[in-house]
């Protein structure tokens, strides 16, 4: 996953990984290498977290860098700050890898401008399901402490966390690693020039080699890939054919919460919320006459399949859609499976930050021979027209 030549700096972690992250950020703000940071903070009622953009160092003490659950996808917070341009403030954002990946997808869509952001990730053990957290914050904190110790999700975590293969460093500027290490230390690893410059400015020497950490990650990754495979098989069997899809989404109440919680669905007016999506009453009556009956309101399946066609290439499998569903449809399991298939078509991984444009913004002259029955010229590759 990473070059073995890569090295990291060690932070003392007397207060668990979250504490080490907080100390790091305090140092960065004190040395004026960052103007502000974005971190989750507990809401006053104590049963959820909110993203707080803070430039006051004293606020750091109340922040929870590694929060147990993710109520709002971090990419949405970053979009709200930078959708019109990068801005002048240098901001460090500490988020889960899936949140940073969603932000990268949004940056390819022109919705996030990461130029002045320093995106930091950590070894994510998974996130507790939002409803579980709201119902029992104290118990959930205990579950999460256990997850953090083992580095992997338990039953209280979102189902997609169990199949997440990108739970660690993934194209972020800096990464906080603790897996496979002793409890006394947290690694800070630069992932970009921006990240390296920050560590240099802070006077942190990259002395520690990463073998132990990489070993920890690779082991966990292997486990996760196995569970990914078997879970996808199950999802595939469950969704088999149109009737399978119908039964999974049968109790959808059409609230579109999954879409508004989705970090990728940024469109101001979704087609499915528009007037055009409304069916003509006469057409419905004709259909009902023909078939003996129809379910109303219509287009609940169309909404989900349409969303799949529109955003599955950028889906980062963060699981926010499942958390947002009031009738417990496993939306994220379905989307994660579909996204895996569609992204595989173009050998694309959503959230990758390698200058590769979105799959639908590039093409090769000779590709996908099965789509049209006639593909005549097999010229060399041409670059994207962007």
């Amino acid at each position: 996953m990473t070059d073995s030549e890569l090295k990291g700096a060690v932070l003392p972690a007397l207060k668990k990984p979250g504490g080490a992250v907080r100390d790091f950020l305090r140092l960065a703000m004190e040395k004026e290498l960052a103007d502000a940071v974005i971190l989750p903070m507990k809401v006053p009622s104590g049963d959820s977290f909110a993203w707080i953009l803070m430039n006051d160092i004293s606020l750091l003490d109340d922040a929870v860098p590694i929060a147990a659950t993710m109520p709002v996808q971090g990419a949405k917070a970053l979009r709200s700050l930078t959708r019109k341009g990068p801005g002048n403030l240098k901001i460090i954002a500490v988020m889960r890898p899936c949140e940073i990946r969603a932000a990268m997808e949004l940056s390819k869509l022109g919705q996030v401008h990461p130029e002045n952001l320093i995106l930091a990730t950590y070894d994510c053990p998974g996130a507790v399901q939002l409803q579980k957290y709201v119902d029992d914050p104290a118990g959930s904190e205990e579950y999460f402490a256990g997850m953090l110790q083992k580095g992997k999700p338990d039953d209280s975590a979102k189902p997609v966390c169990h199949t997440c293969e990108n739970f660690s460093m993934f194209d972020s500027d800096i990464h906080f690693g603790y897996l496979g290490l002793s409890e006394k230390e947290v690694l800070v690893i630069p992932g970009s020039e921006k990240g390296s410059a920050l560590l240099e400015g802070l006077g942190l020497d990259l002395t520690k080699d990463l073998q132990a950490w990489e070993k920890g990650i690779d082991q966990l990754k292997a486990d996760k890939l196995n569970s990914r495979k078997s879970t996808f098989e199950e999802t595939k069997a469950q969704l088999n054919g149109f009737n399978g899809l119908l039964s999974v989404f049968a109790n959808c109440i059409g609230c579109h919460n999954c879409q508004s919680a989705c970090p990728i669905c940024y469109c101001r007016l979704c087609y499915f919320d528009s007037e055009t999506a409304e069916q003509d009453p006469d057409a419905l009556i004709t259909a009902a006459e023909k078939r003996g009956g129809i379910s109303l309101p219509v287009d609940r399946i169309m909404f989900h399949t349409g969303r799949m066609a529109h955003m599955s290439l950028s889906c980062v499998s963060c699981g926010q859609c499942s958390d947002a569903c009031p009738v417990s449809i496993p939306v994220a399991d379905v989307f994660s499976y579909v996204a895996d298939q569609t992204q595989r078509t173009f050998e694309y991984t959503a959230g990758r930050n390698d200058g590769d444009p979105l799959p639908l913004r590039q093409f090769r002259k000779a590709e996908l021979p099965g789509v049209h029955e006639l593909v005549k010229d097999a010229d060399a590759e041409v670059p994207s027209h962007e």
Partner: protein
Amino acid sequence: MSEWQPKILAILCNWCSYAGADLAGVSRMQYPPNIRVVRVPCSGRVDPLFIMKSLQSGFDGVLVSGCHPGDCHYISGNYVARRKFAVLKPLLEFIGIEPNRVQFSWISAGEGERFATVVTKITEDVRKLGPSTRLVKKL
């Protein structure tokens, strides 16, 4: 009632396939009258939703036709269209729509004969499959 006739939506690019259809007409070529034509500025304009929606509203088949690779009026719209269809096609098959119901082809403005052949082929393919039942609104 007379024998069932397939209803096929043909979404044609203004710069090539639509002109190809015209050429087939002025050349008095014969092809089945089962298509309903919608003209689009480019096959890249076709949102996967258009196809799903037309199947849902009762069309038995959909033909999308654009310019040959390298001939796109807007340089690359047809390549992008191909990528979109590559995503849509497995999705349609997954939900039980037979592959032959939705077809994509390249037809240039000069290929009136090819237009007639393609329309004949998709009409026969869809006729064999019978009326579309998937995605059509039901209980």
